[in-house]
């Protein structure tokens, strides 16, 4: 059976094509302001990548904050269900999964079958989301891809007191004025954000194996800070973590589609 999963997120829209449990095609585009158009483009990109046509699909699962714009989907998959299914798909021993997206972060506790036992969401405050990192990268004048590796070169623990992204920006500017080294500020930023995510994960319990998905998983500085804050040796990250929720939606579409 071939299914597709489409995840229309705040920043990017992703599509994954799944054939008998294997990923055979992927597509990603910026969501922008026209969600339906982004969905269409990423969907077509993935179909082309897989070398199939829409008629070959048994079912299409839709998820993400823009799920309502996915007219192609016949199975609506809620965000939490998609992330738990994704974690289980990539790592069958996953019991805790954290998804740090552009404007939202979520944590889910899952069972042996990848079903959701409990979850927590932050969609009210940018401090625990990718938007925080983007703002900090601007304040530090260091590209997003570089602030993570930069943080890894520091051994100094300096605190960022502000919780709010807007206040943290001023605080970082203050640290720069005080001649604090960029690598130390960068580490402080990652520690602060990891602290926010960990406090959310603690609400549902820290149960290994822990899986992280979403684009922020590309940031090694953040993953290291997360491991340290959680007190675990390893946080499991799938290949192409930004596609994970779309893959989860495709998995759910295969089992629930009728």
């Amino acid at each position, binding site marked *: 059976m071939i299914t597709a999963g489409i995840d229309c997120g705040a920043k990017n829209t992703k599509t994954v094509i799944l054939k008998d449990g294997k990923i055979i095609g992927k597509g990603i585009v910026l969501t922008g*302001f026209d969600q339906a158009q982004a969905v269409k483009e990423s969907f077509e990109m993935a179909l082309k990548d897989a070398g199939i046509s829409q008629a070959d699909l048994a079912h299409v699962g839709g998820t993400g904050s823009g799920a309502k714009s996915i007219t192609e989907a016949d199975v609506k998959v809620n965000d939490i269900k998609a992330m738990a299914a994704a974690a289980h798909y990539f790592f069958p021993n996953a019991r805790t999964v954290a998804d740090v997206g552009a404007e939202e972060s979520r944590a889910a506790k899952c069972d042996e079958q990848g079903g959701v036992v409990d979850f927590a969401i932050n969609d009210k*405050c940018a401090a625990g989301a990718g938007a925080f990192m983007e703002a900090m990268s601007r304040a530090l*004048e260091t590209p997003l891809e570089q602030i993570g590796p930069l943080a890894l070169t520091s051994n100094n623990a300096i605190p960022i007191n502000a919780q*709010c992204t*807007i*206040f943290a920006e001023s605080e970082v500017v203050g640290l720069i004025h005080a001649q604090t080294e960029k690598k130390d500020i960068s580490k402080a930023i990652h520690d602060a954000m990891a602290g926010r995510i960990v406090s959310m994960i603690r609400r549902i319990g820290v149960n290994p194996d822990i899986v992280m998905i979403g684009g922020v998983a590309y940031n090694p500085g953040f993953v290291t800070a997360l491991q340290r804050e959680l007190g675990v040796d390893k946080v499991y990250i799938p290949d192409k973590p930004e596609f994970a929720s779309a893959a989860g939606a495709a998995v759910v579409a295969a089992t629930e589609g009728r």
Partner: protein
Amino acid sequence: MAEEKEQEFWRWEETNWVNPDIKWQNGEFVTLGIDVGSVSSQAVIMVDGQFYAYGNMRTGSDSPDSARNALAFALEKTDLPEDKIHYCIGTGYGRVNVPMADRSVTEIACHARGANFIYGPHVRTVLDVGGQDIKAIRCDDKGKVINFLMNDKCAAGTGRGMEVFADLLSVPIGEVGERSFRIDREPMAVSSTCVVYAKSEATGLLRKGLSTNEVLAAYCSAMADRIYSLLARVGVEPEFAITGGMAKNRGVIDRLKKKVGLEPMKTKWDTQLAGAAGAALFGHALCKKGKGKGK
């Protein structure tokens, strides 16, 4: 540092003033209150508990320097030498870093005391909308705090949030209030929780074709929502007064007063001065008790 923009839209006017009717030489006690806030700093000099001079300016990256600068700015138009000041109280976010202070008092106590002086003893609810926090304070007829609630964790509803918006929309901050009413129809409020999200929403609204003024209105009303939720939790009792820089922004205040159902009290004084005025008054009270002499 980011390169300087050609125009800094968030920048508000710094002011200083001296009371021509008062000669400090004739007074018994000259007291100073310095409020070092996260965004603005004020120095208020009182002679026997009356406004003599003040300076109101932006806080720099260093609290002691900000305190010194605010004092120098307040003294600029006077002939008062600094060593003739009998007592100084520091308040605000940077109150422990006011080098010339004899002691410090919390900004909650100072704002209540200052509002009691600026608006008169009838004030029972004081809303202070500052640079990086909002405080809703209930007080008695002496300006003593009965209860208060504060948000200092989140930029939503604070002056800093408004500065971010002024910059985003390239509208000088002093014009925001006026322009937010130059619209045909009141738009829906943007996100009242996170300023970062409100910013992306605002960009989306601009692309949808809303005018800058309409987007300003959408943000002013989100600010009013946010401030109101704090105020509602502490309970509003008449008379109701607003202090801090936001009191000068009609766009937020007029929308807020509709929700509260009360007309805020009016004053001829700069609303940003309340904290420093309260501090100077505490200093005066201490001097009268004989604790401030000998300096």
